[in-house]
């Protein structure tokens, strides 16, 4: 499965993921507690500079994922222009764009394996308490594997619908699709149990 990590290698790819995430938390908190338009303008320019630094391709990918914010920017802009409080509106819009852009930046520069390592580290206290986090790790892997499998099954069902009906497939296809998925789940849990289950001997 393709993750959203940028294929363009940046220096930030090598920084520890935990540090990037902690920095992101601090920066986002800072943004939400500041109401000074100059601070927000500086932050926005700084983030855009970070996007531009690794090159044009990185910048394009980054801006594309920010594009989803335009309806909100439009609504806030119109609201505050009518309201006569354009300054406040500008702060809200800049804060929104900067916060989302910063978070996306961390996603783009952190490999999936590094993120999973952070998740594993974050669940350390649970293991100390005696909880088994192996189930969580297997479940994450299962979702990543099962999503494309389910997609294929859905496509096959759609094809057989098309072969039999002149009408377009509609929501009725969800029932046989879910049944297929449920039967798969039974087989997978049998297979897991046959291989020793989720509780490994060292637990």
């Amino acid at each position, binding site marked *: 499965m393709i993750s*959203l990590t940028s294929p363009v290698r940046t220096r930030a790819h090598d920084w520890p993921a935990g540090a990037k995430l902690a920095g992101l938390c601090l920066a986002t908190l800072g943004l939400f507690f500041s109401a000074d338009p100059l601070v927000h303008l500086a932050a926005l320019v700084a983030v855009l500079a970070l996007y531009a630094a690794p090159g044009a391709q990185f910048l394009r990918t980054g801006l594309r*994922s920010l594009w989803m*914010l335009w309806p909100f920017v439009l609504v806030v802009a119109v609201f505050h222009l009518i309201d006569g409080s354009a300054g406040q509106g500008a702060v809200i819009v800049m804060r929104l764009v900067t*916060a989302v852009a910063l978070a*996306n930046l961390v996603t783009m520069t952190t490999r999936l394996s590094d993120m999973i390592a952070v998740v594993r580290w974050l669940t350390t206290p649970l293991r100390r308490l005696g909880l088994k986090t192996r189930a969580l790790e297997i479940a994450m892997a299962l979702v990543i594997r099962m*999503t494309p499998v389910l997609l294929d099954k859905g496509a096959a069902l759609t094809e057989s619908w098309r072969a039999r009906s002149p009408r377009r497939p509609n929501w009725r296809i969800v029932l046989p699709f879910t049944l297929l998925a449920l039967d798969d789940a*039974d087989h997978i849990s049998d297979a897991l149990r046959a291989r020793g289950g989720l509780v490994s001997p060292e637990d």
Partner: protein
Amino acid sequence: MERNVVMIALFAALIAVLGLIPKITLAFGVPITAQSMGVMLCGTVLGARRGALACLLFLLLVAIGLPLLSGGRGGLGLFVSPSAGFLIGWPVAAFVTGWIVEHWRGAPLTLVAGLASVLGGIVVLYGFGIAGMALVLEKSLLEAAALVTAFVPGDILKAAIAGMLTAALAKARPGSLLSRAA
């Protein structure tokens, strides 16, 4: 144990796949997808606890950067965006939906699951969504609510389908309807 974990993972994957059914984007960018029907089904089929866990697992994978949300979206940015409240509300919505299906046994399952989906997947979820939007956009709750009312009819339709699907699944695979297993 194995079966529970696999079912939770399966429904997390199901939410992802439902997000790939072509979407319609209405005003204000929150797209209408079948994904929220996946959240309702998590509750009605898996029950409160497992349904909420399936949603949490899905959100965790989105947070670490997999493009599983409708339109191939994903990553940490979504959790500070105006629609973050809806995402955070998913596990709670699935929990409430599942809790109702587990405890209300007196009526036909289609009706129970449908109404549970309305209460959990619409009332509770919109509560979270509207609060999140009001917070990020610095608008009042009423103004934020006005931005999302356009999605309510679509979600009522999805709740009805979720109800019918749950009843049909209960007939076809009674053993898999974990919300009514005990």
